[in-house]
Every structure is written in structure tokens, then in C-alpha cells.
């Protein structure tokens, strides 16, 4: 007779991390093929609980849960375009990538896309993702008409922002990081587009003040706006790119042959193994210099492709591996307008730490939506990628957290992998309100994640 060792890994065991590849934990991963399977698994959940996971693009520990059952939602990815109402109804596991491939040729675009199109609909809602149009059109959750969510008792709810009885649950689920229930399906509004091209204005800015002044002055004229900042140069010089979907009259005759053609480039991969430290100050400096130079000093109404404008990094598969096995993190905060100086301070403190940021992005947010845990608020948001192995980093980020909290800002859960529970309590003042709705939707505390445990959510 043989006894199965309680220590040995089973076939369904997986070590999961976020996109930053830090702090792995083991979970039992299941790939449900029906909503009923999800409901049944929730009813049978053990003490470590359950969690839904999409494409794993959250940088930290949001889509992993040690010892829990994690649903790989990507197997459920049907979706349907309703041309008349201009909406898509999609399984939570459907990706923005596959939805774009179907809807762009039909003359539609997603209401919000992040810097990667490899995000599921469920993840887009749970993190309430934002994109280059936040200052005009808000975050993803603001465009959701309704969603189906399996709650902590295994019952399926239909939530809508306009229904008095479900709107609190709806908004608690938007930005709720998967901790109120498993989103299984959502219907969201699309943007009608005339062409699959983008009309883009680019300007190189000689320092950070120049970047920020131009954004304050001109962002309102554009649907999409974002600035890339040279994190190595003390001036904080940058490249501001702004634009909108091109209209038909902006296309050349040749482009007019297929105005809604949409193709994503074939992906080259980052090498499978990259040692720690390859991405050092010298290589980051060289990259930032090249990135700055590759852009024109100033150019208007240039025609770009959707992938080139929105998702440049999706052109390199597994680019997160360039940080080596110790992984990396993205520090992203938002602060109100009057605390814009924290942007400069952050860049200079990261330079002091010798923590080179490969890609640094600055954007202005518009007003917040009603979701208590939604990240975006009016003001400045800065996102900087830094290698996790840098030992000087932890205290410097804590110091920056303090400035962000003091200024009334906060950090983005989808990027976080190291903030403290007290930082969350301080910077998300509506946490208690969210807790009470969450407790109503998940009375047994079934939905758990490493992020939730780490931050006492």
C-alpha cells in the first residue's frame, strides 16, 4: 500500500506570479468550461478559498492566491458583437486582443484599452483599467452596461450601474480586484470608428515642466494623450503623443482600400533566460536615449496603426523577462494636480537609488467614477518600471508612498506588489464602504488573493 505524500505537488499545482515575476505562490489551477463549474467550485471551496485569474498582466500578486483554487478564466472566451446597440457581450475570459480583431473591421473600438491588449474582460473590470483616454472617457468600468457575477455563495447575480438594488455591488466589483465574486460575463459599450488608423501628434519636450505644461494646456483637445519620460535624464525630458482615431478623409487613397483593416504584428520573443543585472544603468540609458531620438521633434496628423499607438510593448512577447529572474515592479501612483511636483521627486529618487526605469509613462487623469476601490482620480499618474532586486529600492518607495499619501494620492492595486496595509487604509478612504458590500457578496470570505491577504483587503 502506498500513501500519497501530502507534501508533493499534484498535477494541478502551479506556481503563479504576476507580470513582474516576483513572490510566487502555489495554487491549484482549474480551467472551468462552464459557469456552473465555477459556481460548484465556489460552494465547495476549502479554507484557502478561490480566485479568478485572467492573462496575468497585473504586475504584483493580484491574480494569485497561495493554497487556493485559482480559475484560469481564459478557456471561457466567447463574445458577441451587437452592431445595433454598439456593445459587446463577452465571457470574462475573452481578451481585448481577440475582441479587437473581431470588432475593428466592423467599425468599432473598445472603450478603454491599457498599454497591453492581453487583458481579459474580467481583469479589465476587476482592476478598472484605464488608458490614454481617461481624461476624457474615464476607466473601463464606466462603460460596462451590466455583468454577471458568481458571488461567494455560488449564486449568479446580474449587476447593473443603473439598477438601484445592484448598483452598489456593481461598483464594488469594478476595481474590486476579484474579491467580491467571479465575473463570468459582461456587456460593455463600444466606440464607433471610421478607420482602423490613428491620427497622431507627437512632440519632443526638452524637460518635465515642458511636458506637464503642454499636457495641462492641450490634453482637452485630444481623445488620447500620454507622455513617455526619459527616466535617466535629470531634465525629465519626454515625448508627448496625442491623437484620435483617424477619419476617412485623413487616409490616403491606398489606405482607403481597406480603411478598417486590422493586423497585429508577429511577435518576436525576449530570450528565455536573461541574467539579473543585464538591465543595468548603461543599457537603460541607451534605451531611453534611443527612444527619445526615434521620435520626431514635432509632427502633426501622422497616421499610426492601433497596435503601434496603443500597444507598442505587445510587439515583444514576454518582454517582462528582460528584468531577469528577480523580476521587477511597476510603481504607479496618482496625485492631485497641485501635487504634480511628486512626479519630479519620484524620478529623481529612483535615479538616486540607481533603479533604472526602462519605461516611464506620465498621464493626466480625469474625474473618478463611483467605484470605491477604483484607482484613477483627477490629477497626475506616473508609472515607472524598476527591477525588484535593487536593495536600495524598498525604503525609497516607502518614502515616496508617504508623499503620495500625504498629497491625497494612492497606488494602483493592479501594479502593486509591495505597499503596506496602512498605506491602503490611508489612501482608499472608502475601503470600509467597499468591505461592507464585499461581506454581503461573500459572507464566508471565499474570495482570497495574495494581494488581499497582504493588504488586509
Amino acid at each position, binding site marked *: 500500500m502506498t500513501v500519497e505524500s501530502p507534501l508533493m*505537488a499534484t498535477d494541478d499545482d502551479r506556481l503563479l506570479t504576476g507580470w513582474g515575476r516576483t513572490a510566487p505562490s502555489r495554487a491549484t489551477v482549474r480551467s472551468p468550461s462552464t459557469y456552473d463549474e465555477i459556481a460548484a467550485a465556489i460552494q465547495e471551496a476549502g479554507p484557502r478559498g478561490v480566485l479568478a485569474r485572467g492573462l496575468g498582466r497585473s504586475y504584483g500578486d493580484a491574480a494569485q492566491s497561495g493554497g487556493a483554487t485559482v480559475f484560469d478564466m481564459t478557456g471561457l472566451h466567447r463574445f458577441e458583437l451587437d452592431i445595433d446597440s454598439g456593445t459587446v457581450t463577452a465571457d470574462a475570459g475573452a481578451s481585448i486582443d481577440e475582441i479587437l480583431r473581431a470588432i475593428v473591421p466592423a467599425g468599432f473600438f473598445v472603450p478603454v484599452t491599457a498599454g497591453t491588449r492581453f487583458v481579459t474582460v474580467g481583469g479589465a473590470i476587476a482592476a478598472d483599467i484605464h488608458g490614454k483616454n481617461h481624461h476624457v472617457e474615464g476607466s473601463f468600468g464606466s462603460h460596462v452596461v451590466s455583468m454577471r457575477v458568481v458571488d461567494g455563495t455560488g449564486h449568479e447575480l446580474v449587476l447593473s450601474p443603473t439598477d438601484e438594488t445592484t448598483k452598489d455591488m456593481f461598483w464594488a466589483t469594478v476595481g474590486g480586484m476579484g474579491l467580491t465574486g467571479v465575473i463570468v460575463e459582461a456587456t460593455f459599450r463600444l466606440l464607433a470608428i471610421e478607420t482602423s488608423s490613428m491620427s497622431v501628434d507627437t512632440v519632443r519636450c526638452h524637460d518635465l515642466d515642458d511636458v506637464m505644461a503642454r499636457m495641462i494646456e492641450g490634453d482637452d483637445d485630444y481623445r488620447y494623450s500620454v507622455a513617455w519620460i526619459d527616466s535617466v535624464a535629470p531634465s525629465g525630458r519626454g515625448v508627448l503623443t496625442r491623437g484620435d482615431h483617424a477619419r476617412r478623409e485623413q487616409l490616403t487613397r491606398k489606405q482607403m482600400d481597406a480603411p478598417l483593416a486590422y493586423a497585429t504584428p508577429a511577435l518576436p520573443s525576449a530570450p528565455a533566460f536573461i541574467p539579473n543585472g543585464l538591465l543595468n544603468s548603461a543599457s537603460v540609458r541607451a534605451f531611453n536615449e534611443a527612444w527619445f531620438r526615434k521620435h520626431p521633434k514635432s509632427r502633426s496628423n501622422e497616421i499610426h496603426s492601433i497596435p503601434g499607438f496603443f500597444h507598442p510593448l505587445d510587439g515583444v512577447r514576454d518582454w517582462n523577462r528582460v528584468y531577469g529572474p528577480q523580476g521587477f515592479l511597476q510603481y504607479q501612483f496618482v496625485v492631485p494636480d497641485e501635487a504634480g511636483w511628486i512626479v519630479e521627486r519620484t524620478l529623481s529618487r529612483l535615479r538616486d537609488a540607481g533603479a533604472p526605469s526602462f519605461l516611464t509613462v506620465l498621464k493626466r487623469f480625469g474625474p473618478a467614477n463611483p467605484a470605491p476601490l477604483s484607482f484613477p482620480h483627477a490629477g497626475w499618474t506616473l508609472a515607472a518600471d524598476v527591477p*525588484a532586486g535593487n536593495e536600495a529600492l524598498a525604503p525609497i518607495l516607502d518614502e515616496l508612498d508617504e508623499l503620495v499619501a500625504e498629497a491625497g494620492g494612492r497606488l494602483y492595486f493592479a501594479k502593486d506588489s509591495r505597499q*503596506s496595509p496602512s498605506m491602503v487604509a490611508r489612501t482608499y478612504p472608502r475601503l470600509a464602504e467597499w468591505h461592507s458590500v464585499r461581506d454581503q457578496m461573500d459572507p464566508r470570505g471565499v474570495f482570497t488573493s495574495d494581494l488581499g491577504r497582504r493588504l488586509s483587503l
Partner: protein
Amino acid sequence: MIDAVGEPQSVLVLGGSSEIALATVEALPRTRLRRVVLAGRPSAEIDRAAAHLGALGIPSVETTLFDAADTGSHGAFVDGVFDDGDVDIVLLCFGVLGDQAEAEADPTKAVEVATVNYTGAVSVGLNIAQRLRRQGHGKLVVLSSVAGTRAPVELRLRVDESRFDAFAQGLGDALVGSGASVLIVRPGMVRTRMSDGLPERAHDDRSRSSRLSDRAGAAQRQERHLRTRSVAVPDDRREGGTSTVVSTLTPVAIGYAVGRWL
């Protein structure tokens, strides 16, 4: 959880009055540390250790009864600690230093020593490994040669230690892929309270120290050889399994070395 920049939130110390354990806890990053459990027999040392850690600003420092020899109580003890919240780091640092002559004269004394140092450690070590596997993350730090102070080299009871070391290595291998990992610390000479009054022989120190590090070095090389996984991914921390830290000198130096690894 130990976060992306290596900050732990909770630590359990078995052998809560151990100077090496205390030095290790002190060497850990503390900004996210919110719970330390010191487990051991009630003593003035363990209370002092708790007071000392509390004074460092750690929000919750508990002392709890743990009797290594009472193996029947280990399951409930470990469950009690883990049921109150995930444990990121477990330091297994208990052991008694047997007296050679006394043990040879009185076999029951020898059994007592063996029970604590080997049977007790295996029992609680397995209980902890199961809970770490269930939570899917965490690090078990095993001080292999707990009584590896200035005990006479020829002490035959040391066989417990080598058996326990082998057990800990096996535990690390079993936990590969579990999210949890084992760190075996093999200290050389350590001057602690336990070693007070024992003869210090400089020439022995040298020879023993070099033999220990040779052995550890060989073990490390062998481990790398056997576990090809750790060659492909040079950072053992990501893959679970066993890593080894060898240190000598003082509890503080060992604490520092272990703290760096974690």
C-alpha cells in the same frame, strides 16, 4: 506574504529563546513585519526576547508554549499558529546540548537529548512543512547544527544532527513546486550562552571549521548537480527546494547571513 522587495509580514520561531533566532529576526526587514510568534518553554530568556522585539516596534509579538519532546502536541500547536494567519518564515532553532559523560552514564538522558534534537525536530518540521504547502508559500529555515556551538567534536550524540540535516534536505526536495522552500543553516563555531563554560580550543576550531565548510561546500555542489532546476534558474528562492547558508562566528553574523538570503 513576503512581498516583491523581500519584506516579510510574519515569523514563527521554534526555540524562541535562541540567540541565533533572535539575531535573525532582528536582521530581517521590519517595515511590513506585523506578527512574530516565539515558541518554546516558558523562560526568562523567551520573555526578554519578546520584550526586546516588541521594543523594536513589531506590532504583535506573542510567546507560546512549545515542547519539542511532546511530539503528540505538535499538530495542534502548529495548527494553532497557522490558523491565526499565514506564516512567511519559520525559524527552527531549538535543541539541547547533551553532556557526553552524563549521557553515557544514563541512557535515559541520552534518549531525552535525542528526542528533542531529532524526533521533536522531525515531528514539528513535518507539521510545519504540511502547513506551508497548504498555504502555498513560505520559508522554513532549519538551523541544522543547533548545538553546533563549542561542543566537543567527538560527542557521539551529534549523530542526531547529521540525521536531522539529511531529513531537512529531503524536506526541501519534497517541497519543490509547493511554493514553500527550506533553508538549511549549518553554523560553524558560535559563541552563545549555550557554549558558556565549554573549553575553547583554537586548533580544534580551525580544523573543525574548515571541515564543516568543506562538507557544506561539497553538499552545495552536489545539490546543484542533482537539481538541474536550480541550474536553469540560478535563484533558488523562486523554485522552492533547499538552499544552504554556512556561517560561523556569532549569532548576529548568522542572523545577518540568513536575513540576506531570505
